[in-house]
Structure formats: structure tokens, C-alpha cells
């Protein structure tokens, strides 16, 4: 296989604000539906089990102009909300039969309400994710939310979603998460063989195609990446945190790498690989929806938009950095992203106590000048390489 060609195709796919890949899929599958999923934790398995195509939405990035959404979303609110609305107002999201918004923050939540008014023909579904994960009622409650989604999709699709279909979808998604884990393991083991920009491209493209196709693609790509001949470079080892929802332009990621960093872990599009363990379908009692709810409550990766209990997020972040033997941490967040900016303070204090250097970089979807980011990171890299 031609690895570079595959990566180029994937890159074109996720940088396409017209969702041509989704349109092609719908044309090839008449009568089937596509559902857009706002980040982070949408249980795509349920959509997949309905025979629909779940598609990850990450706003318009720097690919579109904002002409209509400005009057509906104020300037002090994060840009992914505005660019997503712009995609809708310009008809680019007409290919979707519905949108699902998870309860990650107040903006995503209210955007679901803006959607209901502006796009009444589209299903606009809001999921409340249980935040009191210690309550004995958390799993059954979240299951009832998932069941509500199931019912809405059944109504939309005009056919029932069976337990068997759900189990099959969970298996497909478990395989996808396992393959992505292999990709990340490779990047950690031999960061010279696969760049962050390439990893990111593969992950993002996976949000725009059926998971079966993405699995097939990853099965081909992984050995090809492994077989690459590359020489380790004199770079520092870093972890990125803060861009779990709104995504920076890929030039930011490339700039960080070129400035001298191996990025060993990140939370970009974390919803694509948000579980630390497969969704367990064991036990007679657990039905598929319970298994999905239990996976979120017990096994999802810590993030700024999920409450894990006192000090858990900080503790686990520190453990991750220590396990990966990082030289430093880069906080990369979107302007006006409250959850990331709040977490930053607690995380950086913990890093200071552990004597791990860190740097904060704020981005906007529409930024077009990357020299500043690059020189910031270069200075950070130099300070670590030469002075620590």
C-alpha cells in the first residue's frame, strides 16, 4: 500500500467542510441516515446499531468564513460553536438527519437549543451524562439516557435497534479502539516512526467513515508505519492537553513537532478513543446499553468535561506524565474554552510540584499565523534541552 497516499486521502477527508465523504456514503446507501456528533462522549455504537453513519463534528476549523453565525453567537464564546452553526446555516450539514450534543459544557448544551430553533427539520438530541459517578444510580440513569437516544433513533429510522445489533456495534467499536491504542502504543514506543500530525489525521478521518472501513484501514496502515525506517531525533518528549473538543489548525500540531517535540499523548478528539478498556459485554445481566453506560462511568479517560472525583484528574494526569517519562507538558486550548482553562490551573500546579516544565498555548480555529506558536515551543524546547 502507498502509505503517503492513504494519509493524503485521510487529510483531504477531514479538511473538507462539505462532508463529501458522508454525501458519497449516503448516495451509496439509499435510505440510510447520517448523524452528526458534537464532541466528546457521544455513544456512537447506538447510532451504528441503527444502521446509520455516526460522524464526528469538529466545527469548521480554518476552512470556512463566518458570515451568518456571528449574529447568533457572541464573540466571547468559543469558535467551534460559531463555526458549527455557520456550517449549519450555510447548508453544509444538511446531509445529516440529526445531530447529537453531549453534556460537555454549557456552550455545547445551549448550542443544542440554538439548533432546535434554527433547524427544526433535523433531529437535535441532547444527552445528559451522569456526573455523580459515585452514585449507585449513575449507571442505570445513564442507561435510561442511552435508551432515550435509542428510541429517538428508532423513530427516525423507522426500525427497531436490536440487542444483537448493539452487541455487534460494540464489538466493531471495541476493535476500533484497540487499533487506535496500537497506533498510540507505536507512537510512544517509536515516536520517530509516526508523527502526531499523521496520527491525528488517521484519527480524524476515522470519524467520517464507517468504523468497519476505518478498522480495515488501520489494519493496513499499522504494519506499514511499523516498517518505516526512521532515525530518532534529538527532541523532547511531551504530552499535550486541552484540545479535547475544539481542534487547533493542523499547522499548530506540525509546528509543535517541528519545533523539537515528540508528542507521546494528547487529548485531541479524545472521544474517538475515550475508553481505557473495551466495553465489556460479559455477564448475563448486563445488556448492551448497560455495558455502554458502565463503560462511561467506570472506564472513560479523565478529561476536563467529566467529573472524576476530588483530585482524580490531577493525580492521573501526573501519573501519565511520569509513566511516559515526559520532559514537559504542552497545554493547548481553544480561546474561551472554560473547562480546559480551569483544569490548567490545577494541572500546572501539580506539574510544578513534580518539577515537570510546562507551556500554555492558546489557539483559535481561524488563526493563520503560526510562527509565534513555533517560536514559543522552540524556546521551551531549548530551555529543556540546554538548561535542565
Amino acid at each position, binding site marked *: 500500500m502507498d502509505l503517503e497516499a492513504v494519509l493524503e486521502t485521510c487529510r483531504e477527508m477531514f479538511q473538507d467542510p462539505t462532508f463529501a465523504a458522508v454525501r458519497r456514503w449516503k448516495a451509496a446507501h439509499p435510505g440510510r441516515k447520517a448523524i452528526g456528533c458534537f464532541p466528546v462522549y457521544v455513544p456512537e455504537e447506538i447510532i451504528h446499531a441503527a444502521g446509520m453513519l455516526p460522524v464526528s463534528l469538529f466545527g469548521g476549523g480554518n476552512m470556512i468564513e463566518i458570515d451568518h453565525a456571528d449574529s447568533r453567537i457572541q464573540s*466571547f464564546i468559543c469558535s467551534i460553536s460559531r463555526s458549527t452553526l455557520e456550517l449549519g446555516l450555510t447548508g453544509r450539514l444538511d446531509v445529516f438527519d440529526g445531530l447529537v450534543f453531549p453534556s460537555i459544557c454549557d456552550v455545547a448544551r445551549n*448550542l443544542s*437549543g440554538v439548533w432546535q430553533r434554527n433547524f427544526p427539520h433535523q433531529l437535535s438530541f441532547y444527552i445528559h451524562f451522569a456526573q455523580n459517578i459515585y452514585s449507585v444510580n449513575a449507571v442505570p440513569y445513564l442507561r435510561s439516557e442511552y435508551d432515550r437516544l435509542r428510541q429517538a433513533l428508532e423513530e427516525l429510522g423507522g426500525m427497531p435497534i436490536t440487542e444483537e445489533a448493539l452487541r455487534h456495534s460494540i464489538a466493531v467499536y471495541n476493535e476500533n479502539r484497540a487499533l487506535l491504542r496500537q497506533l498510540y502504543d507505536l507512537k510512544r514506543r517509536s515516536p520517530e516512526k509516526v508523527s502526531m500530525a499523521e496520527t491525528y489525521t488517521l484519527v480524524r478521518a476515522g470519524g467520517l467513515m464507517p468504523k468497519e472501513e476505518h478498522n480495515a484501514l488501520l489494519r493496513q496502515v499499522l504494519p506499514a508505519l511499523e516498517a518505516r525506517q526512521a532515525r530518532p531525533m534529538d527532541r523532547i518528549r511531551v504530552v499535550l492537553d486541552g484540545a479535547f473538543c475544539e481542534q487547533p489548525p493542523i499547522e499548530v500540531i506540525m509546528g509543535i513537532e517541528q519545533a523539537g517535540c515528540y508528542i507521546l499523548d494528547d487529548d485531541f478528539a479524545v472521544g474517538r478513543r475515550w475508553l481505557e478498556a473495551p466495553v465489556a459485554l460479559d455477564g448475563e445481566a448486563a445488556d448492551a446499553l448497560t455495558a455502554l453506560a458502565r463503560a462511561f462511568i467506570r472506564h472513560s479517560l479523565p478529561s476536563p*468535561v467529566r467529573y472524576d472525583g476530588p483530585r482524580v484528574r490531577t493525580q492521573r494526569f501526573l501519573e501519565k506524565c511520569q509513566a511516559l517519562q515526559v520532559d514537559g507538558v504542552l497545554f493547548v486550548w481553544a480561546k474561551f474554552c472554560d473547562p480546559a482553562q480551569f483544569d490548567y490551573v490545577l494541572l500546572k500546579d501539580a506539574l510544578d510540584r513534580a518539577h515537570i516544565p510546562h507551556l500554555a498555548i492558546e489557539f483559535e480555529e481561524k488563526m493563520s499565523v503560526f510562527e509565534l506558536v513555533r517560536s514559543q515551543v522552540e524556546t521551551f524546547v531549548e530551555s529543556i534541552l540546554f538548561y535542565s
Partner: protein
Amino acid sequence: MDSQDGKATPELKHQGAGRWLQKEMMSDYYRALSEAPEKGEPVAYLFISGNVGELMRAFGFHVCFPEVNALQCGIKHISPQYLLRSEDAGYSADVCGYVKNDIGLLLSGNKTPFAHVPPPSLLVCNYAGCTTYIKWWEALAEYYGCPIFVLDSPYNRLEHIRREDIDYVVGQLKELIAVCEQVTGRRFDIDRLRETLALARQAEELWVKILHACKHSPSPLDAYFEAVFLMAPIYTLRGTPQSVQYFQAVLQEIEERLAYGLGPVPQERFRIVMEGPPPWPKFRTFWEMFKGWGAVTVASTYSKVGGLWDVTGRYHDPDHPLESIAEYTLNCYVNWSLPRRRQLLLDYARDYSADGIVIHSVKSCRSFAAGEADFREEFSKELDIPTLLIESDLIDPRYFSDAQMKNRIDAFFESLEHRKYVAARAASLPSPNREGGGGEVQIRAD
């Protein structure tokens, strides 16, 4: 003082009672709170929206509201030092100012002119309608190292509250009770809870009567500038006998105003519905910009952040203690979906005979703000309801520009004046500042 129909100056007995009592009650409240640590009494930190104060009081907790501490700092003009202190600690210029005020206060030793804020024995994160609350309480849990309980109140994402939502919250309340027993070493006493709930209900019913009085014309009360001041005890002291007496006194004051045709401005010329929190550090200045036009707020949403009893009719209920607490928690304004919030604004505009809607959109609070510009689009462009969207902040004075704000507000009322008076060929009506024919109650904001 003259009434609006020009009757002789009446002998007023109740004017200013609410304001005076509010100050006295709040200073007593802060004194007791400040003394809690030396008396060895437990303190629970709560949020205003959907707070479970009755349950905490039944265990003998003092209830402390960091939001109220923050707004006190805002209105007393001492917030900038705390905002800067937490920005020094790493908080972004763009995150919620209430959080920054609170963390800055904590890092500065928690001493203010109005209280020495005690550390929490228990952090109860009743985060109805605002996920920033979780981040806030998470930070407090790290700083104080004390126990935290997240009371998950699902968002009102449908037209109604789901039975599953109520059951889920009731289940958590039972878990919270076990935590309270552990922290205080006291057994849960359901009768004591019923007593506090009965008192809460009385205060809530009185408060609703006061708010409904604004349907009269002229409105006896400014449902924003006065209400957000008068409402404090419905959140901080609900469930106490004092809060009931207080709202009885406020109701008497309002009834007296009704009897004599008195209102917050000399001549009511415009009736508006107000959406969003006030700019606390510029409260006076902001109010004057409306008063100058004879504009009175007849209904507001900020006065409902901690309860929508006026429209739901669902009060705390001693006969259904935990269920009524759960329902109350779920029914706070910012926990309502955008379609429900939008409908509420429209209902207020109709039921209170408003001339327009003013949206004060604050940078700190995306829970309020995200979606407000879309309200404006619909109200003014599709429904032809005059709607003004203005932006500043609830606690950070750096985001309030006096001149710009005044220009926007003046332009709005100029066009409203044209629509209501000039276009209606009512040119003979008095101009806003003309003498005679009207009574004003002297109310100060600070």
C-alpha cells in the same frame, strides 16, 4: 412624595422596610457564618441555583454561597484585587469572574469587610444549570482538601421534567444525607427537614406574590434592579422563620406602593423584561441608564436563578420532602432548555405587558449567554419585539464601558419611544423628565 394620580402625600409606613431588613439580615447571616469555625459548627458550601439549603440546615450546617460572596465583592467594588490574584495563579482572563473572585479571595486569606469566610466542612456541588460549578468546586476541593459531593441535576432538555430525573436526584439526596450524617455526626431528622421546608414554602409564596404585583401598571417594583437585591434571603436564608417575616414585610411595602400608585420611577414610561445577570460593580450606573427613560423592569430572569416558583407553582413541600427538593433543584432558570427559556421570556413579555426585552449578556457566564444572541435574532427579526442585546460582565468592571453602554441603551429607548408614543400619535404625553404626576420611592442600590 406624590402618587401618580396626584393625590396628597400619603402617610407611608412601610417604605424602605425591605431594604433595611435585608441589610440587617444579611449582616447577621455573615456574622454567624464568620463565627462558625470558633464555635465548631459545620459549614456547607452550596450554589444558589437549586440549592439544598433546607437539607443542610436540618443537619445544623451553616450554608455559605461563594457566588453571593463574589457578588458582594462586586457591588462593594473590591473584586478587582481578587480577580487579579487568581489571574496571577493561572486563571485565564476569559473564565468566569465569580470563580476567580472566589479563588482570589481564598488565596488572599478569605477576609473581607463583610465577613471572614470560613472554610467548608463539606462542599455540595448542586450544579443545576452550570457546568462551571463543577470546575469551581473541583478546585475548592483541591485547595481545601475537604469532602465534596456532586449532586448531579440533569438539564431540562425536554418540555417537561422526566420522572427518571427526579428519581435520580432523590436517590442522590439519600446518598448526600448519609454523607451529612458522617460529616456532622448527627442523625438525619426528617421532622426537622419538614419544618424547614414548611418555612421555605411560606417565604416562596410571599415572594411570588411580590413578583406578580409587577403585572400592575404602574409596576410597584422594579423586577430586576430592586428584585435582585430583595431576593437575597430567598436563597441564603430560606427555611428560617426570619426569612418568612422578611418577605411579609416586603409584601406590605409593595402593597402600600400599589395602594398609592407608587413605583420605582416618577413616571413609568416603558415596561421591560430583563434577561441575564446584572453588572454588579456598575449596578447603580446601569440602573440610572434605565431610570432616566422612565423604564421599569416588570419581569426578569436573573431573579429566578434560584427558583421558578412564579411560573411552575411547584413549591418546597413538607409532605414530599425529598421529591420537592429534587423538583426544585431541576427547575432553576439556567437549568431550563433554551426553547423553554425563550418561551418564558415571551410569556413574561405578554403577561406583564412589556414594551420590549433587554438582554444583558455577560462574558463570565456562558450558561446564561450562549443562545442569548439567537433569542435576539428571533425576537426582533421574526417576532417584531423590540429587543436590545448589550454585553458586559457580572463582576469584572474591565468589561463595562459606561459611554458605550449608555449609547446603546439610549438608542434603544429612542426607538422604543418612537414606536410607543410618537408613532402612536401620543405626542401630548409628558417627556421623561417633566415635573409632576408621579411618585418615586427612594431606593438606593449600594
